[in-house]
């Protein structure tokens, strides 16, 4: 009897604290909203895609009318330049009035920011809309094997896919081995972006994961001691592949965007993307022919999440959090997933959403070039971010001249 009372009491206490916590959180959020009103958020993001820019333009109009926040998109050609600026600001002792309020980031850039204490947070897990986030995805909690720990708010999912034009290619290669055979069959029509371009390095990682014996090793940090042993299969593979590549593997397209352009003209037969909806969205935008399709490798492909982060010296942290929260809302996420706007997959778990919000996602026309969830196969976790510089340097040493 006593034990039960005690249990009931403890339950009650837990309940009360939980309620209090929730109400405190709600109150906190309301004061945050009050602070955010009238603030200007400088959102630095890669500006190379008109579709993304238009989507952010829509979000800017929404946060203006809903929360009175002025969202200004600063389009940059490269996110690292922004990371460099924040680092320089810290070095110059600028603790306030930072030039960046919100930043589109992941992977190595996040690693640099986090290691150098350049981030505000933890904030993301206390955003109201975070409760819908699909926390079962490992890449949401670990960005390139680096614990996120609330220092950035998830924004979109990415999984490596390959693009081909079904009018020109009947059967695309579904593994690195098949890719080698395909390249032999179509010499000069296959390539990958020049590392250290983002997707170039990703291709190296994918090839390494498919050729090596113990892929789990890559989740641990890089170590000079076993680097050559671990990566030997990759270099063997590339040595075999390169003679059959575009320009005999002496030269590489500068980025995945260039490869899409070359896929359109037929200079290349295959292209590469981190967005499973890329092909459908590009078809809708007139960038690729309607016959382009997507495929993945049988062993699975690399997947990651991209995030929004707030620098330590932002003067508009309240408004930046409100914007990050809005971009996590089912409404904003559903619009983002629609290929006629952007086509970037959601980070939300649809099962958690209300019926009304689920309907938003079900209404999206993904287009014939997008694979279904089953066809996407299983995902491979991104190697620890510390592998990236080592892989890039070794590639440079072997093929960079």
């Amino acid at each position, binding site marked *: 009897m006593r034990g039960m009372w005690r249990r009931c009491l403890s339950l009650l206490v837990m309940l009360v604290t939980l309620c209090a916590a929730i109400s405190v959180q709600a109150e906190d959020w309301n004061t945050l909203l009050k602070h955010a009103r009238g603030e200007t958020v400088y959102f630095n993001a890669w500006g190379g895609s008109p579709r993304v820019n238009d989507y952010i333009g829509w979000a800017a109009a929404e946060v203006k009318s809903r929360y009175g926040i002025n969202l200004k998109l600063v389009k940059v050609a490269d996110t690292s330049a922004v990371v460099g600026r924040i680092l*320089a600001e810290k070095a110059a002792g600028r603790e306030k009035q930072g030039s960046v309020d919100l930043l589109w980031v992941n992977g190595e850039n996040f690693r640099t920011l986090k*290691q150098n204490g350049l981030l505000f947070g933890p904030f993301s897990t206390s955003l109201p809309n975070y409760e819908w986030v699909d926390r079962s995805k490992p890449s949401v909690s670990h960005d390139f094997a680096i614990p996120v720990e609330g220092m950035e708010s998830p924004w979109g999912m990415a999984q490596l896919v390959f693009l081909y034009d079904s009018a*020109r290619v009947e059967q695309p290669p579904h593994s690195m081995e098949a890719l080698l055979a395909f390249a032999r069959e179509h010499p000069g029509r296959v390539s990958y972006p020049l590392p250290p371009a983002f997707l170039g390095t990703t291709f190296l990682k994918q090839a390494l994961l498919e050729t090596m014996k113990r892929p789990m090793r890559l989740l641990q940090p890089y170590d000079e001691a076993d680097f050559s042993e671990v990566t030997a299969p990759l270099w063997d593979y590339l040595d075999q592949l390169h003679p059959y590549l575009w320009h005999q593997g002496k030269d590489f397209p500068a980025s995945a*965007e260039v490869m899409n352009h070359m896929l359109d003209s037929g200079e290349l037969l295959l292209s590469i993307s981190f967005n499973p909806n890329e092909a459908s969205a590009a078809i809708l935008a007139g960038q690729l022919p309607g016959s382009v399709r997507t495929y993945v490798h049988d062993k699975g492909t690399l997947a990651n999440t991209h995030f929004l982060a707030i620098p330590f010296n932002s003067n508009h942290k309240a408004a930046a959090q409100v914007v990050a929260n809005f971009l996590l809302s089912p409404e904003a996420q559903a619009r983002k997933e629609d290929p006629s706007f952007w086509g970037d997959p959601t980070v939300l778990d649809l099962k958690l959403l209300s019926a009304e919000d689920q309907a938003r996602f079900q209404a999206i026309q993904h287009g014939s070039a997008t694979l279904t969830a089953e066809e996407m196969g299983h995902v491979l976790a991104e190697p620890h971010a510390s592998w990236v510089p080592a892989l890039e340097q070794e590639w440079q040493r072997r093929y960079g001249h």
Partner: protein
Amino acid sequence: MATALRPLTRRQWRQYWQSAGLHSLAVLLLGVPLLLGLTGTVLLSLGSWQPFISSSAISSAASSPPLSLWQPLLQLPALPHAILLSLTTGWAATLLSLSLTLLILMVLRSPRQLHWLQRWLAPILAIPHAAMAFGLMALLAPSGWLLRLLVGGRSNGLPPDWSCVQGSSGMSLILALVLKETPFLLLMTLSALARTDAEKRSQLAATLGYPPGQALLLLVWPALYPALRLPLLAVLAYGLSNVDMAAIIGPGNPPTLAVLIWRWLADADVQQWLPASAAALLLLAMMLLSLLVWLGLEQSGRWLLLRLTRSGWRWQWPARWHALGRGMASLLIGLLMVSTVLAVLLLLCWSFSWRWPYPALWPQSWTTQHWFSLWQAGSELLGNSLLLGLSSALCGLLLCVLWLEWSAHQQRPLHLGLWLWLPLLLPQLVYAFGLQWLLLRLGWDGNALALLWAHLLVVLPYMYLSLADSYRGLDPRYQQQARLLGMNYWQALWRVKWPILSPALVTALAVGFAVSNGQYLLTLYIGGGRFPTLTTEAVSLASSWDMRVIGVYAFAQLSLPLLGFALALYWPKWRYAGLQGMQPDVVKGRSEP
């Protein structure tokens, strides 16, 4: 001796102070930021700039002994190739542009032709470098328009795997540079021609029995060269250090040294910035060496020309050869002009296309959607570009006139040479990073005034170059006459000297405006991303490789400077209609009365 010992008069003192003031103004405006930026880069390259990156990310690099950063850089297998590429493309482009300029002058003799040519040069100058590179890609790539025209339809539906652009030889980069630099050199030569006694010299040469081509080389060229030295060196410096053209149409693996630095600076790995700064110094050394070699070549060229002139040797070629030479030269010039025009037209075509697959010669479907999206986003970009361009050009004009007017009254001329050369010859990659740090320290970054200052840094030299000769070359008797007629100093300036110079002043404004409009790196770094312009937008959208959007922004970017040049050309015509002597006619020295 006696004069030296005599105490200075008040007037002399005033002059000293004024001259010191003007010099320090130049040093403050141009020298200090550049030198500080450079110092930052040097410190960074030595790995000893702890306060800059005080993080664990580079602790291994920063704590190692100085110069240790240079070792991995120098051992990089791509480095010798990259340096060689930079040198070959930069030098080849400069020498080719120079020879083409001379060739064009030899072929086009009549003032009418030169006048026509001059009118066409300004719009070509207004084409942004990156846009030109993209236009050439659209023309010359394996899936480009030229090959579609030649082999399209006959192949298996796929473009050939040729490396005609971005090839490791850098040929396409050289071509792109030549197409962009020859018009610049030609315009500079034409304006220099008008200020020399070229007509008299060629007449003299003709009476001495020199054929026209040789006359140009032996007698006219030495008179022109002093005015062309700095433009030529600027062309060489640009060729060696440019990023915007080389990253698009240049070789990719390895790229030129400047692109290599650019890639490192854009790397997420902070460790890469240190070799990048070391490589930036290497680039600087390469440029200084190239300048020295150029000055050496200048001396030997002078010696050679003197020997040739003294020997009294005359070209005794059969008339047939002359005709053939002229024909070849005309063909070459025609080809260059056609490829420029085609490149621009192709971009225009792309900007209106919806789908344009290989091997179709014309777009399959058209749209105005891309232009419409520019229309929606354009007002802020346009406003920023206009405001920045106008304010920096006006400030630049004010300073240039101040310097020139003052130096006109000094016994000793104002030695601004070094300070003006520095921003032209130092690659922005070398100092922009350090300059940004300096402004951050002062808390001035992202500030409109700081951005204006940064723009002035590059705008001033070009404006000064464009204005100085006309300003100094004006006959002082106009002003003397005005004073004799009872005007005071300021009235004489305001009512006589400056109106007479107004075509040159307006041209300088247009030049400054165009230079300011073209700035990407400085606008982004110093402006903290708060001042998006047409150029920053165009560069960030260029990474999409969507030729349709690139086409739209190329034209948007080109429109403002073009408008500026057109105004500079037509405003005096309208303002001083009926006053023949006031027309901006750079070849008037050669035109018939």
